[in-house]
């Protein structure tokens, strides 16, 4: 079986931390309210992870077809 092209969990975690950092910085600067935004958008992490799993699968399948 082919190894994963990349780690969906790792990418999701990384992207999530970056997003959290950006949000927190903007909140500290008074530009946004962190908690309302976080409360509305946190499920996006599942969407991103799911999409990355599907992308990883697609990449592995296409590279598996290659000789």
């Amino acid at each position, binding site marked *: *079986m082919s190894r*994963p092209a990349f780690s969906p969990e790792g990418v999701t975690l990384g992207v999530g931390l970056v997003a959290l950092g950006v949000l927190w910085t903007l909140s500290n600067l008074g530009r946004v309210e962190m908690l309302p935004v976080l409360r509305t958008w946190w499920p996006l992490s*599942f*969407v*991103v992870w*799911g999409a990355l*799993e*599907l992308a*990883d699968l697609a990449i592995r399948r296409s590279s598996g077809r290659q000789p």
Partner: protein
Amino acid sequence: MSTQSPDLNAPAPPPPLPPSAVVAQAAPFVRLPKSPGLAAFLSLFPGLGQVYNGQIARAFAFFFAWVGSIYLTSTGHEFPFAFMIPFVYLYNMIDAWKGSNAINQRFLGGRTEPDEDAAMESPVWGAILAVFGVLILFNNLGWLDLDRLARWWPILLILVGAWFVYASLQKRKAVESGDEPPRL
């Protein structure tokens, strides 16, 4: 090597090593596919250890057996369901442990276990994650009322059950056609 007469005074050859030691000698560090300890620890939440072992049907069975025992006990049927609660809970941990060990034994015995991540060859897993996230996100944005949808949750049971049936039939086909060895 020249043939010689056996030397009766020579010390007896050492006994043959057991297979695990041969493997250990050939590869001093063998990464076993499953950790029985982790499986047992995850089973503190009934069913999660079986999920870790890739035994989804067993996971569902243990979870619902445990939850069902609690429910039946609380609704006036203490006998025998009160006894089943600790039994199911402990047995679920033991089963997860043994399941992990069985997988490791098969691995050491030379049977190849499918790469666990490659076991996610189906797009179902990614789709489930994405759909789950979309549903909650849409609810938070006010585009969906999850409270109203919640009454339809038993349809999930129907879908899961149908998937189990389908997966079992597929597996049987694969075993019968020789593509996959029968599972012990």
